[in-house]
């Protein structure tokens, strides 16, 4: 295998680069005034609740340092929960507590935390350690998703999620992100999660990427990464489209988790979704985005949009013509 690709080869495959993503899509289709809606997860949650979009239940908000001491009461009410910064980015600062063990709290990776450690983490969130620009922040305490059993076999701890890029109301690309041992249970590709491309037409996983390298099995579980059928696929697409319509951003990353009982839930939105999704799919984004941009009459009906999105996806096999 070669050490690099030529610009021409990438262009032929419709790969979207960081510069072009910023200039031609994010700057063009995402008005800056809408950013607070997605950058502040509390706002996103509020907006979603108003519009009837399914989200994990909010247990509480820690807004000022003083409340950190009172967290114990919220913690006492729930066996499992997630603590995350309202303005976090890239999954940073998210603490997932799976269960209790006496006085201690057990993290997704099995390690134990004291209540002081949790309070310190919350203080860090409040002081802005994880927020964009280091501004003071709030900590959100919410329902820990009890993820769908189908992921149990292939994933390693943490919460696997599904990232869908919705462009002008049409789902353009999708992948699922599985935490690994080196991602510390986080579904963040930069931190070492595995990304599995999803064929939008079928809801079936295709390629997989780990640390920007193509893989065909989960590094921890060894489970084959292709051919997994994502449950509730059409509902997931529907949820993603609903989110895009509600928040009004033209180029949006929607992160969705599948709960065992509650089905697909929107976890968060991202106004600057990353580009690794292309590697996970073995397919460039640019060609699809351009097709959507060039289309004179994009469908507005929900079902028509899903059909349109599915039609955009090349038949899965054609990606692998060797």
């Amino acid at each position, binding site marked *: 295998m070669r050490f690099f*690709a030529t610009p021409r080869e990438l262009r032929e495959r419709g790969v979207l*680069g960081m510069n072009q993503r910023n200039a*031609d899509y994010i700057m063009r289709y995402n008005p800056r005034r809408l950013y607070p809606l997605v950058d502040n997860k509390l706002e996103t949650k509020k907006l979603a609740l108003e519009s009837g979009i399914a989200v994990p239940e909010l247990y509480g908000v820690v807004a000022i340092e003083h409340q950190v001491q009172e967290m114990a009461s919220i913690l006492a009410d729930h066996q499992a929960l997630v603590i995350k910064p309202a303005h976090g980015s890239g999954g940073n600062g998210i603490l997932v507590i799976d269960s209790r063990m006496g006085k201690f709290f057990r993290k997704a990776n099995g390690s134990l935390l004291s209540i002081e450690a949790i309070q310190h983490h919350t203080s*860090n969130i409040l002081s802005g350690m994880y927020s964009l620009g280091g501004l003071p922040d709030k900590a959100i305490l919410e329902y820990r998703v009890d993820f769908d059993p189908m992921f149990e076999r292939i994933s390693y701890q943490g919460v696997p999620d599904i990232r869908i890029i919705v462009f002008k109301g049409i789902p353009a690309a999708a992948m699922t992100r599985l935490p690994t041992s080196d991602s510390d249970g986080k579904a963040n590709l930069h931190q070492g999660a595995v990304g599995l491309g999803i064929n939008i037409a079928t809801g079936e996983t295709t390629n997989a990427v780990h640390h920007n390298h193509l893989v065909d099995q989960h590094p921890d579980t060894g489970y084959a990464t292709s051919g997994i059928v994502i449950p509730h696929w059409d509902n997931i697409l529907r949820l993603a489209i609903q989110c895009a319509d509600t928040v009004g951003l033209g180029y949006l990353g929607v992160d969705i988790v599948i709960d065992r009982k509650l089905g697909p839930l929107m976890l968060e939105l991202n106004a600057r979704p990353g580009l690794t999704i292309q590697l996970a799919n073995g397919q460039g984004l640019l060609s699809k985005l351009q097709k959507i941009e060039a289309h004179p009459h994009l469908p507005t009906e929900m079902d028509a949009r899903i059909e349109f999105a599915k039609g955009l996806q090349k038949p899965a096999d054609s990606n692998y013509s060797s």
Partner: protein
Amino acid sequence: MNTVTARVWALALILLGLAITAYKAYELGLPITPEQNTDVWTVQAQVSFEGKGKPAKLSLFIPENTPGFMLLDEYFISSRYGLTIAKTHENRRADWAIRRARGMQTLYYRISVARSNLKVDWKTKPDFPDPPDYPEPYASAIKAIIDDVREESADVESYTLELLKQLNSSAPDENVELIRHKATSSGQWTNEIINVLKGVRIPARIIWGIDITDSANNISLRPLLQVHNGDNWLTFNPETGREGIPADFLVWKVGDKSVSALNSGNDLDVKFSVTRTYAELIDVARQGAAKRESFFFEFSLLSLPVQNQITYQLLLMLPLGALLVVFLRTIIGLKTFGTFMPILIAMAFRETQLFWGIIMFSMIVSIGLMIRFYLEKLFLLLIPRLASVLVIVVILMLLISLITNQLGIERLLSISLFPMVILAMTIERMSITWEENGAREAILQGIGSLFVACIGYVVMVNENLMYLIFVFPELLLVVLGLCLWMGGYTGYRLTELVRFKGMLGTETK
């Protein structure tokens, strides 16, 4: 559309910047590279006289308009004398005065000049002289010559040339012979020619100057002839007829008045000497700037006080550093901690030199990181922890300075400029990246930052660039234009060619 507008702006700014630079370089003669040495000549006029113990006034003509040379500096060495400088429309005159001058008095005037291709001209416009009444037998001789020359000339220039040719002919006729006998020195000879030119109402004058070819003592002024053609003063050698001011000729004064005058005293003597020194062109340009009359020079950084110039020399390198960051991040795709942090580090490297700078940076950051990891365990709030890291950075720098001082390494003493806050922030960000994205990512970004800082250092200590941007600050427009241009670059970053090489995987497998 927006990209196109940005590109148009970029192009316009780049062209404007380059045009002004080219104008200054080629029209005004500013050198575009700094290290060319240039000859600087120091010409000294030594004036001496014997005082009579009475009040004395001494005057000395000093250079004003010096075509082919620029005046860099001048000094008057005349300890107890009062000095005033009188300016007439063609000349400058130094007037010294003293209440009691007893015994041998010596005063000096020194001027430094360097060659320059700046155009300098006399703006004076003379009146047409009335034809004088020449006494016989000169009247008829001059008339004969005048008529003779007129036959073979078309304008003032060709008339003067022809006249000089005839007057200096190696086989002179009796008319020329007659005039030649009157003149015993080249000064008198020039005045005779001027006298003849009056007969045809051509304004003419004598200028005096010095040949500057090599270091020499006891040089005397020599005259040249100038005639006015209605627009300009044309210069001729009165003995050879050669036109133009010779390249080595430094004009000292205009007119026939004696170069120095004394109202009371004996043995007035003026001696000229020339010494040759070298100076870097930037210094020449700097010193010459104040003396030139150009819009671009009056608003030039070269006209600022020297200590401010040094500040600006540093300041002006920052945009270059920023341009470099834009390039390395947008086109190459390097990752760094903070956008312009590497450039500030690079500025600090200027003080410490690269090698010690890198050692310093690595030492402080790694020790700082270790301490920061310990602080993590103390569960401190963000701001107090940041402040603690800052204090630790300062203590580390202090220790390093003290230790290296003991070891006799002076380089690291000059780290006062090392941006401590930036280092503290770097440590903080690095430790967070370390914790969240792993050691690999943190070290990679750390090395990326250091790498950008190194390149930034190499760019920012480049003497040529420093000189260029300082003397031609309009190049900042070019820098701005390039930034705008790259702002519209939507192509792949170089690192993306590696990142997305997996896109080819399905076919090459």
